[in-house]
């Protein structure tokens, strides 16, 4: 779905991305993981054209991203960020249907879609007319997810969607996200710093460090065949979470 070819992006003298080459398979969930500042969020934002690379090419569905097509391409993607992404002056309903009404969808088309998404994301219908300030953090993220899915995009991009939630709600939302990904069968790219979450949600894990891809593959590849000592260190540092994950499955 995405092909990245020797992408480099510098901020001042530091390289946020350093000659990254990566292919994102369609219909699968890919997790970008790594320590803070490794370039995983920069990479995700590049996929949706919020950041342009200094050099290299980003292909979406075989087509290079450029200013002329970026707005049209974005409507084929849904984007969820950690927090603050909902417009505070709009109710949950207005946030979710904003783009659909901008595109001139009729209410007969909007309402069923909204109901469908609320059911999919387990969002209570009576919360639709509340403002983000009046909803909990977890509910806000469900609204963000509904907004990202409203136009039925081919791709779903999530930037640490559960990063700011407390553990109980986070656990519940992880389950729900996994179900949603499975039910929709879309191409999903999710950024996280939690290896357990990555392993739970994604089939492919891309481990990054200092702007470069260290290893891309399944979780078991990383545990059994680390590409370099850093991978081993990273896995060991998250071991306790992994144990919990192991017990569950």
């Amino acid at each position: 779905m995405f092909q990245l070819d020797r992408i480099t992006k510098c901020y001042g003298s530091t390289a946020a991305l350093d000659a990254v080459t990566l292919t994102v398979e369609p219909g699968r969930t890919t997790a970008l993981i790594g320590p803070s500042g490794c370039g995983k969020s920069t990479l995700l934002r590049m996929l949706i054209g919020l950041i342009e690379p200094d050099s290299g090419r980003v292909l979406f569905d075989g087509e290079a991203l450029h200013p002329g097509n970026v707005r049209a391409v974005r409507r084929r993607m849904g984007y969820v960020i950690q927090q603050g992404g909902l417009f505070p002056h709009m109710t949950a309903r207005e946030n979710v249907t904003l783009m659909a009404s901008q595109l001139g969808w009729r209410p007969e088309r909007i309402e069923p879609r909204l109901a469908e998404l609320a059911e999919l994301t387990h969002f209570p219908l009576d919360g639709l007319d509340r403002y983000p300030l009046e909803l909990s953090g977890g509910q806000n993220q469900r609204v963000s997810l509904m907004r990202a899915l409203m136009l039925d995009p081919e791709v779903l991009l999530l930037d640490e969607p559960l990063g700011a939630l407390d553990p109980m709600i986070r656990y519940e939302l992880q389950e729900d996200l996994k179900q949603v990904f499975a039910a929709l069968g879309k191409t999903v790219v999710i950024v996280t710093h939690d290896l357990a979450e990555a392993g739970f949600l994604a089939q492919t894990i891309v481990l990054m460090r200092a702007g470069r891809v260290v290893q891309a593959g399944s979780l078991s590849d990383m545990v059994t065949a680390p590409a370099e000592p850093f991978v081993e260190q990273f896995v060991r540092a998250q071991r306790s979470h992994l144990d919990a994950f192991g017990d569950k499955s």
Partner: protein
Amino acid sequence: MIIVSRFVARLLTAVLLAGMVACLASGCTRTDGEVSIGSKKFTEGIVLGEVLTALVADADIPVRHRRALGGTRIVYNALANGEIDAYIEYSGTLIHEVLADAGLDAAADPATVREQLAARLAEDGIRLGGAIGFENNFALGVPKPRATELGLARISDLRAHPDLRLRFGNEFMDRADGWPGLRDFYALPQRDVRGVEHELAYRALGSGDADVTELYTTDAEIAYYDLRTLDDDWRYFRRYDALLLYRIDLEQRQPEAVAALKRSVGLIDAPRMIAMNAGVKIDGRSEADVASELLRVELGIDRTPPPDGFITRLLRHTWQHAVLVGISLTAAVLVAVPLGIVAAHRRRIGHLVLATVGIAQTIPALALLVFMIPLFGIGAGPALVALFLYSLLPIVRNTHAGITGISALLLESAEALGLPPGARLRRIELPLAMPTVLAGIKTAAVINVGAATLGALIGAGGYGQPILAGIRLDDTALILEGAVPAALFALAASWLFERAEQAVVPRGIRGRVGGG
């Protein structure tokens, strides 16, 4: 950006049209056949304006008195430009101040001077219609007890008392034939010399806060404050004969009006003028009232105008004030909000815009009003423009701050959704900036209501009119008649915008400013 600039262009057109309509409604232009009489902004000038007005009205010609337009320059230019048709000016003021460049020799014999003056006035399209019959010369006055204590009887006596506190009217301070000339002529040593409103100078003398002021020899206050007029022993001050001036083209347009105006020639002698000034300033009668009494006694004309009651006056001032504030503020909102939007999106233009409107704000309101006169004449027009300029800064600045203060996460969300720029502005940026924008408009409205009181200085009317009249007449009740409603008006405007915020700002962001 093209859409925005087209939007701005359309707004500007609308604002200009609104301004023109406002001008028509408030009398920037006048109807055909109406004679317009002007007056300078002091009691005697207004009384004389009322006399001329009543004379024209007596000939059944439509006439309008544009009262208290301003100082000498403003009124003279208004006459030269045809904004008014006639007013009364003093010979000394013309020779030494207005037409100083013509180099007329005041020392020549009076008939020659008059001839030269008439010739020079004709160059400006102005006819010297004749002398009214009294002189209003400058003199210096000292409270009698103080004069006795210091032994002051002549101006040259002042040379021995360098510590005296001198308070002069602003016009006298600046005029070549006023304080600067007098100081040099008598070599006066005083250092504590300040310019104030002429009426306030009298009051400072009365309360012992000052020792010397300039007098006009027809001032009613000379007797009222018990002042001694110092003898001009070295003969510095010149003659100030009151003269009727009118536009030459009026002779063709309305000869009957000229004939009516000329009835004022030789009509008023000095004691008569002092009595009329005292009638207004000390007895608290209206200028129109003393003028019509004069015409009744001297010419047998009886057209006493019905005096306006308090409510009528209040309604008139409120209406004028509301028109000034309403139009200038609406125009400012229509221009400043788009300017603020552009400034927020284009950093370099933004700096320029904010700096420019910032500079407009640093010009004192009074100076701004005066700057407008050569461009827009007198009356409501220049006041509207000045108030408009004055209201821009708070709105531009708050619109800019409201939009640039929106969190980067929200802007990125809008971009990631694929919202086109126009929709982003309309659906995201403006609603989020709305509380800040409204706060800016509220600030502008309150400033505007206050500044609009100064409009009365250039004949725009409003609550400033009773305030100025009150200062002129030392009448606190009259000052309050303007000041109290002006304060209430500002409070009402403030309250209105708070209500508007309740109505316009969605619950999700109410009560916070910035929209981050």
